[in-house]
């Protein structure tokens, strides 16, 4: 394939750093390469994906330590590890951290890394906006957690922070302010990235990659982005109202002035329920890639998988008030939302059976990734079924706000979401880092997590049905709660051991990697485009943008079915895979401005809480950075690249829309 040699940025593997003078800004324009500074200025979707993933896993430990504290406090009755006040902060921050700082960004890591690879693109539609999303997310995450230090403690209102308990009178520390502003910052990050990834999915597919040929992971991530796109503004409204109430004496949630506390609940859950599908759909996508690969069969019922995903995403908008069955909103509303909730079981059930049907007659090879994927299906089903028992509104009046609910959502979130994403981590680790995770340790990791998980959350079903309320910092002797709480705490310790095994696995695999054969582009005999390029993926992803002819394009490059329907190999990986050696692929230039914009936002946050002057400084920093950003050309002007005139048809592949950015001053084709 002809690659144009005239492009300025030679960003193949192993290139060197070059910093050019930039008259426009404070920063010299970074130009790619290696070293920590390049991580700060990177606009490469893969690096951003790794940044998301690493930070998310870090916050998993933070949220996990909070979970450990919860479990230690509740191990025995009248626990005294934490005071009630601290307990309330810890469980609130546990929920917030796990949802917003762990599982969403971990899913974002997959979205960033794999959407472009799976659709055969060289980057996302707006690389700098992508960097902006990450940095804003990180600054929001840090902001939220600094409330422990400067805010007088974490938020103490529960992750859904119901009014009126979230008012200043009832939560006088700054914790809730940090919650309100922190989640707004995180919301901006997710909103920006959802717009970016939607445009990427719609607009940057390789030739032939029709929507109905997109890998299911990409599909589920796309649906997730739409859910984010539409759900985030709703919680943004709610958070603004809360912030105005707390900081500027507005009256949105002041019942003495005639306000209705249920307004918050509606706004929160209109966001909150789509949110839970935001959590689960990426994991569904991962499972839909892993199970076929290790069953040696294509995914059963691709169209049904896609449309059930769409159906879930769509129906998820009409069920929010099932979190409010006992709020007193009236029996007709209760009945209506109860009905709408139930029917989500139908598309979800279709998914479960399609996974099973994929395994039907397959050849199941239980790698660690496959184990996690299958466990995801099994554990999620348990959580989904307890969800169905809540959906029967009258029954839920006995269940809501008990540990039975806690059991439900940890089964779907941990048993579905977390196990699913772990499957993805084991599956794609060699692709991302160029070496396998150790399967033997992985095995131990899997089993400890699975056993620990069931020992932790299984008993919570019983506890809840025995009447144990959630969000209690302690319980009295004599209600029959002792035994199962102890069991759950022991389970958590086992999970913690599993998490440590995972950390050890990461470290050991990296250490061992040089002595082991490299995985090569396609270690699992994969099906989708990311396996057609080297591991780790070169900066420019694809030497040549692939031409797609059908679903599972890469698999069909390697195999065909003969007349008897038997699979025959038509090409080896070595023959078919790209080498990653192309140089001179035109890539977007890195930039420091996304980082600078992101630094301004928490300053605004602190300012709103403590001193408006600080907010002004933050705002000025943000605006100045945005302006500098706008003035910074997408591509480095020093690197003159007027080569576009020279394009002849056969070298056009190299300068594909990957360079497109949000500035219209870009002069790419």
């Amino acid at each position: 394939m002809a690659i144009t040699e005239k492009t300025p940025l030679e960003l193949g593997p192993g290139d060197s750093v070059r910093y050019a003078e930039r008259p426009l800004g404070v920063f010299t324009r970074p130009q790619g390469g290696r070293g920590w500074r390049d991580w700060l200025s990177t606009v490469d979707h893969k690096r951003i994906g790794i940044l998301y993933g690493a930070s998310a896993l870090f916050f998993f430990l933070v949220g996990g330590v909070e979970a450990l504290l919860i479990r230690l406090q509740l191990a025995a009755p009248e626990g005294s590890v934490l005071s009630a006040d601290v307990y309330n902060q810890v469980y609130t921050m546990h929920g917030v951290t796990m949802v917003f700082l762990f599982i969403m960004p971990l899913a974002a890591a997959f979205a960033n890394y794999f959407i472009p690879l799976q659709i055969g693109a060289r980057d996302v539609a707006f690389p700098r906006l992508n960097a902006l999303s990450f940095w804003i997310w990180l600054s929001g995450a840090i902001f939220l957690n600094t409330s422990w230090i400067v805010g007088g403690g974490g938020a103490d209102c529960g992750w859904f922070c119901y009014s009126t308990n979230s008012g200043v009178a009832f939560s006088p520390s700054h914790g809730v302010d940090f919650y309100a502003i922190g989640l707004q910052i995180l919301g901006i990050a997710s909103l920006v990235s959802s717009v970016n990834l939607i445009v990427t999915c719609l607009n940057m597919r390789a030739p032939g990659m029709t929507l109905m040929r997109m890998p299911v992971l990409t599909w589920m991530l796309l649906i997730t982005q739409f859910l984010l796109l539409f759900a985030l503004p709703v919680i943004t409204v709610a958070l603004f109202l809360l912030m105005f109430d707390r900081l500027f004496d507005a009256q949105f949630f002041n019942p003495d002035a005639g306000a209705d506390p249920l307004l918050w609940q509606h706004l929160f859950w209109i966001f909150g329920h789509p949110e839970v599908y935001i959590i689960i759909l990426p994991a569904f996508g991962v499972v839909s890639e892993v199970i076929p690969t290790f069953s040696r069969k294509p995914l059963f019922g691709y169209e049904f998988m896609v449309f059930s995903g769409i159906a879930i995403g769509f129906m998820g908008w009409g069920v929010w008030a099932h979190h409010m069955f006992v709020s007193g909103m009236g029996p007709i509303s209760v009945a209506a939302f109860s009905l709408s909730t139930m029917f989500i079981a139908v598309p979800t059930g279709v998914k479960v059976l399609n996974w099973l049907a994929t395994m039907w007659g397959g050849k199941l090879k239980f790698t660690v990734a496959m184990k996690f994927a299958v466990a995801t299906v099994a554990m999620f089903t348990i959580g989904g079924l307890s969800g169905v028992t809540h959906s029967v509104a009258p029954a839920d009046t006995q269940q809501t706000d008990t540990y039975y609910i806690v059991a439900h959502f940890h089964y779907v979130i941990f048993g579905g979401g977390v196990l699913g994403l772990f499957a993805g981590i084991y599956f794609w680790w060699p692709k991302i880092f160029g070496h396998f995770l150790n399967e033997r340790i992985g095995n131990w990791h899997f089993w400890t997590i699975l056993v620990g998980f069931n020992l932790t959350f299984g008993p919570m079903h019983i506890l809840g049905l025995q009447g144990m309320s959630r969000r209690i910092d302690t319980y009295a002797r004599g209600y029959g709660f002792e035994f199962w709480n102890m069991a759950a705490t022991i389970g958590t310790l086992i999970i913690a051991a599993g998490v440590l095994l995972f950390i050890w696995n990461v470290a050991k695999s990296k250490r061992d990697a040089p002595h082991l054969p490299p995985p090569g582009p396609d270690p699992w005999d994969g099906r989708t485009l990311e396996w057609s390029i080297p591991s780790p993926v070169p900066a420019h992803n694809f030497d040549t943008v692939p031409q797609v002819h059908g679903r599972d394009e890469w698999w069909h490059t390697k195999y065909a079915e003969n007349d008897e329907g038997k699979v025959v190999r038509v090409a080896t990986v070595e023959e078919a895979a790209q080498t990653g050696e192309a140089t001179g692929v035109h890539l977007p230039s890195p930039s420091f401005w996304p980082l600078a914009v992101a630094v301004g936002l928490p300053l605004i946050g602190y300012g709103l809480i403590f001193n408006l002057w600080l907010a002004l400084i933050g705002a000025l920093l943000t605006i100045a950075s945005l302006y500098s950003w706008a003035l910074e050309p997408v591509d480095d002007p020093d690197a003159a690249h007027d080569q576009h005139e020279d394009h002849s048809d056969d070298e056009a592949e190299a300068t594909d829309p990957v360079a497109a950015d949000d500035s219209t001053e870009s002069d790419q084709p």
Partner: protein
Amino acid sequence: MSAEAVTADLDHTADDHGHEEHATTTGLSHTKLAMWVFLGSECLLFGGLISTYLLYKTRGNGRTLPTDVFDIPFTSVSSFVLLMSSLTMVLALSAVTRGEAEAGRTWLLATALLGGVFIGGQVYEFTAFVREGVAFTTNPASSAFFTLTGFHGVHVSLGIVMLMSLFVASLKGKLTQRNAETVEIVGLYWHFVDIVWIFIFTVIYLIPAD
């Protein structure tokens, strides 16, 4: 209908759009698509604020309601001004597209000015309301009113900043035919803010709050 058929036009939207020759799957520009996607999201934002106001519009806690102090003739004028700014906006785009830089610049400035008049009107309205006893913290209705119209006002103001940036760029000769799309995108945002006001004007101001 087959799945392919349902999504087919997403994969082939380029046919009838000769003027949109970007090298993208759909043939549509990234930026424009992004703006439309973003505007879809904004509907949920304003919807939430509007619903909050509707829910609270009669909750006065025994004090003056915003509806009590509405000055419909005044607001009608500023609504009209904002509506007409959509016309100047579209004329600006049309001029820039034709390569008439100077006309484009003038229309951009006119749009920004009309927007400025609207914001001025809003500032006046706010201060008048406060004088008449309807402040941000008076009651749920007033909090909701100021939040909704304030959010809209901030949107308009951002639009003005963008218009002025385009204006300055145009003065420097940087706004040429090839950047017509930038004008178009700012225009989309501007028109959106206008239609939000069309909605607000009817639903908040004109429909009587029994």
